[in-house]
């Protein structure tokens, strides 16, 4: 069977060499056609983008947004010595008006300039804008200030408690307007139709944020310091970082690969040809993503540079043999067909195991991680196919210098070190094994302390303007994270029930008084608050009437009054049948893992308070973030297990022995455990990024094992001497193993140049894992093989089996 593969690869090598231009043209035509799809790639960094589209929590959230609109607002917080100052208010009005006229896709802009005030004055009820009569005198300003500061609906929303910070709250469209027909002529036919639109796109969000930033820039001043915070700006900020970083990673990865390739082969062809192969395979993969509408996301932004680093390994193994053969006197055609015959199967198996590691992400609940599970394997297999298909033809047409003599002593020096380490490991197998057991034990202990996290704010450097703005708002206005609780009575006018409204008010009281760790509720808004406001206004503004009325009919009439008095604020708080109401709770922005225990208590308490009067449904960004944590944990567990379940059988199949196959997994599991241990000891969290390391590293690390066992088995069969076999193996393939490990780890280390800290961690840790895997391959695998490999019986027999 093995020989059949070898014959096939050799024959293909001959063909591709003879018909080089035909092959090249075909490949270029296909890639060129696909490349037109690359510009369709979009970037999605939204909070909900972390969850799969069919995730029930995400579905519920979308449902909520359809009813109540986008819940993540852009918040401009403006700090000034005194808000109720004529000069300041005029500046605020100018900014407000410019935003209204200059920012696209606005749903609503709210600030002190246009906020509604419901107030009783004598027998008069006023429902109007707070600043409907623009103040002229200091006395008027003072009265306004007193009223505004006393209004519970403004506090921590439009006005900080100390009166130094005011905000402009910008609600943008929840839906995309792409492809929408503007209806200037007034076509009534479709005034009847109802077509649900897709949610707003990243590009549209970007337009909003750009337009806003330009306006903010113009209004920024010493006594008018504007901080821009809120979900939409974070999403845009992340998208820009992704776009910028991805280019940077790709460039750096290409550079690192080029340098390493040249260091290894000292030939121009050996730099250019592998790069052409991996770049073309990368374009194909990205084109497929574009075609299938899978966006680039925070985790998948690693894909381009990752695929370059992984894919180049295939070419390296083929070229290594190719140059060996050239030096041995083969011509180019013989050399390439021989190299393919020799390495074709090996690189196919290593590609399969790498793809298998990535494939395990398919089971993830984090949507972009699941995307990696599709396009990771696709990219890896593309690199394999392009290497086999294109590399021989490229070699045929690329002018090459005559082969040089075997190289100087320098490479042999690294080779000698490798051999010596391997020999040491083989000779002192038991001691080596004990050392590794110790390291692993320490790591397991560390790994047990690893905490899970999903804290987007911590991804930004501390001095990042966006992070600064968010922390400012977080502190001065009691939070920037929102929980939405939909209280559903299931019956029309259910919200007219005074008892239910009192319970809502009780929920508010409980939430405001409950703190757990760093988690607390900074502010709440519900229909009960609006009702209390009307009730008070109808009763000459007396404090004691800031309460829920006792009478069901009065509740109904007060709500009717509110609707009829020209305010549409209720739209955001109740559905039109008054069967469900929305309570919004504001939290400080924290690591999402902290919210879980708090929400459990809150939900239990809310359920108890509501009894069978209504069902509370928890949703909003906070629940989405919390769900992301669960998804991270689940995704990690499932991908670890799946990658093992996929890769171990591949190894068993390749080695032909269950015992050795499983044994060969050990040196590849140890690096993952060591990294997890390191994370535990250093306090680095497992999040949507670092969870990737385990399966990726496992899939890559077994490549070295594959090559090692490939060589070891051949030598061991001949001599029956494990130590000698280790020596021989490392002398021949050791350098290639070291080299591919260096390429891969530098491919990961480039993420340390990211603008965001989460990717820095990912790059550092995954690069580290690959290096550890290289060490275990040289220092642990020999010991294991010496102790457990049984010459004639196990290995010999299994080899015969595979060869058959």
């Amino acid at each position, binding site marked *: 069977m093995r020989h059949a593969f070898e014959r096939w690869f050799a024959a293909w090598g001959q063909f591709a060499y003879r018909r080089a231009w035909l092959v090249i043209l075909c490949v270029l035509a296909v890639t060129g056609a696909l490349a037109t799809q690359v510009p369709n790639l979009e970037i999605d960094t939204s909070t909900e983008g972390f969850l799969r589209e069919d995730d029930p929590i995400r579905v519920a959230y979308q449902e909520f947004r*359809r*009813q109540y609109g986008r819940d993540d607002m852009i918040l401009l917080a403006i700090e000034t010595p005194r808000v109720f100052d004529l000069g300041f208010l005029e500046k605020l009005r100018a900014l407000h008006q410019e935003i209204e006229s200059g920012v696209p*896709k*606005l*749903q*609503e802009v709210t600030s002190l300039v246009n906020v509604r005030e419901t107030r*009783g004055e004598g*027998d*008069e*009820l*006023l*429902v*109007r*804008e707070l600043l*409907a009569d623009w103040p002229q005198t200091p006395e008027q300003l003072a009265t306004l200030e007193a009223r505004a500061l006393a209004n519970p609906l403004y506090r921590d929303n439009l006005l900080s408690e100390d009166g130094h910070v005011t905000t402009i709250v910008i609600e943008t*469209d929840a*839906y995309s*307007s792409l492809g*929408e*027909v*503007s*209806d200037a002529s*007034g076509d*009534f036919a*479709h*005034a*009847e*139709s*109802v*077509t*649900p*639109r897709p949610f707003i796109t990243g590009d549209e969000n970007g337009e909003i944020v750009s337009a806003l930033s330009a306006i903010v820039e113009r209004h920024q001043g010493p006594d008018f310091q504007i901080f821009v915070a809120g979900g939409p700006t974070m999403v845009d900020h992340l998208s820009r970082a992704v776009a910028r970083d991805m280019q940077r990673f790709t460039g750096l990865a290409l550079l690192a690969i080029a340098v390493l390739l040249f260091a290894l082969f000292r030939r121009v062809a050996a730099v250019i040809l592998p790069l052409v192969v991996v770049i073309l395979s990368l374009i194909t993969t990205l084109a497929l993503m574009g075609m299938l509408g899978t966006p680039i996301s925070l985790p998948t932004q690693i894909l381009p540079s990752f695929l370059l680093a992984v894919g180049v390994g295939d070419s390296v193994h083929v070229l290594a043999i190719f140059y060996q053969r050239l030096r041995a006197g083969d011509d180019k055609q013989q050399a390439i067909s021989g190299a393919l015959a020799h390495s074709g199967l090996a690189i196919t198996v290593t590609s399969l195991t790498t793809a298998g590691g990535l494939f395990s992400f398919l089971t993830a609940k984090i949507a972009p991680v699941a995307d990696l599970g599709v396009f990771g394997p696709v990219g890896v297999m593309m690199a394999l196919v392009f290497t086999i298909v294109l590399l021989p033809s490229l070699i045929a047409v690329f002018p090459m210098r005559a082969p040089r003599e075997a190289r100087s002593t320098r490479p042999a020096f690294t080779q000698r070190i490798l051999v010596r380490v391997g020999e040491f490991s083989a000779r002192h197998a038991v001691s080596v094994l004990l050392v590794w057991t110790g390291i692993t034990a320490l790591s397991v202990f560390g790994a047990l302390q690893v905490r899970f996290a999903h804290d987007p704010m911590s991804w930004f450097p501390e001095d990042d303007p966006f992070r600064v703005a968010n922390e400012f708002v977080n502190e001065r206005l009691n939070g920037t994270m929102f929980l939405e609780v939909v209280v559903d009575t299931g019956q*029309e*006018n259910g919200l*007219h029930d005074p008892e239910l409204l009192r319970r809502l008010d009780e929920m508010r009281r409980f939430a405001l008084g409950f703190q757990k760790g760093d988690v607390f509720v900074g502010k709440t808004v519900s229909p009960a608050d609006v009702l209390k406001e009307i009730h008070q206004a*109808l009763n000459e503004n007396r404090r004691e009437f800031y309460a829920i*009325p006792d*009478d*069901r*009919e*009065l509740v*109904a*009439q*007060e709500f*009717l*009054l509110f*609707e*009829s*008095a*020209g*305010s*549409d604020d209720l739209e955001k708080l109740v*559905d*039109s*049948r008054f069967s469900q109401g929305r309570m919004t709770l504001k939290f400080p922005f924290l690591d999402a893992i902290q919210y879980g225990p708090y929400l459990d208590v809150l939900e239990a308490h809310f359920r108890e308070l509501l009894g069978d009067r209504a069902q509370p449904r928890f949703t909003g960004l906070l629940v989405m973030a919390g769900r992301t944590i669960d998804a991270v944990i689940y995704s990690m567990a499932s991908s670890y297990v799946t990658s093992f379940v996929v890769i171990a059988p591949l190894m068993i199949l390749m080695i032909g022995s269950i015992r050795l196959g499983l044994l060969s997994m050990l040196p590849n599991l140890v690096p993952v455990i060591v990294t997890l241990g390191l994370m535990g000891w250093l306090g680095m969290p497992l999040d949507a990024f670092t969870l990737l390391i385990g399966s990726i590293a496992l899939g890559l690390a077994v490549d070295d094992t594959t090559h090692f066992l490939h060589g070891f088995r051949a030598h061991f069969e001949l001599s029956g001497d494990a130590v000698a076999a280790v020596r021989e193996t490392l002398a021949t393939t050791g350098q290639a193993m070291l080299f591919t490990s260096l390429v891969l780890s530098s491919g990961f280390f480039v993420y340390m140049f990211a603008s965001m800290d989460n990717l820095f961690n990912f790059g550092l840790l995954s690069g580290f894992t690959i290096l550890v895997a290289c060490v275990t391959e040289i220092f642990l695998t020999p010991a294991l093989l010496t102790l457990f490999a049984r010459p004639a019986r196990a290995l010999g027999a299994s080899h015969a089996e595979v060869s058959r």
Partner: protein
Amino acid sequence: MTPSGCVRAFVAAALAFAAASNDALADPLTGRQIMERVDARDDGDRQLNDMEMLLIDKNGSTRTRRIRNWRRDVGEDTQSILFFLAPADVKDTGFLTYDYDDSNKDDDQWLYLPALKKTKRIATGDKSGSFMGSDFSYADMTERNLDNYDYRLIKEDLLDGAKVWQVEAIPNNPKEIDETGYTKSIFVVRQDNDVMVRAVSWLRRGGRMKYLDVKRLEQIDGIWVSTEMHMTTRKGDTTLHKTVLRFENVRFNQPMDDSRFSVRQLEKGQ
């Protein structure tokens, strides 16, 4: 701001002398002239009617309100009083409105909540707010002052077999935009009876648009009355909300004196 203005302007029953409207028109009228004709129609006086209001949200679920409404003209001003008949829990809730022709004078409005047994004067900032929770605004329910707009005849057209004018109206001062919330409207006016049968309005807020469609037009006591109107609020191609307004038992020239439009009457109920 008068709910009783329902019978007027572009929302309420648009009225005209049936006889006066059939003149063959030799010269094309200007937009302004057309709107003057609409404005000049007799919309009747001392009117009593019932109103059924269907509020339909974006999920298609419907709430129904029933209202009884009295209206009379006092010089150029309009007075109206209305009471809710249904749903039961808001029954007898009443609104009394004096709508002044002088645009510098704020309208007077009182409301009575039976459960509170109190009458309150209401002051609201503008007319762009919703009328009784519907898609109609107070501005839709009252006449617009022609001088606040620049009109332009867009074209003549056919609608359901009737000849119509399409007239564009753009407010010529920012105060009017503030008050009504509209930045532009297009009216469709029947040439045979000067009734406005359709209107599209652009809202300043949130890129929304409102579509008025008169679905039923009846002649009552010689006066044209739009007895069923649909108002749809849309954003782009998505319907946000819709109101169906049906007028029943429309009667003109009913006996009604000053006391009918008084706070006492409001508190007494219909």
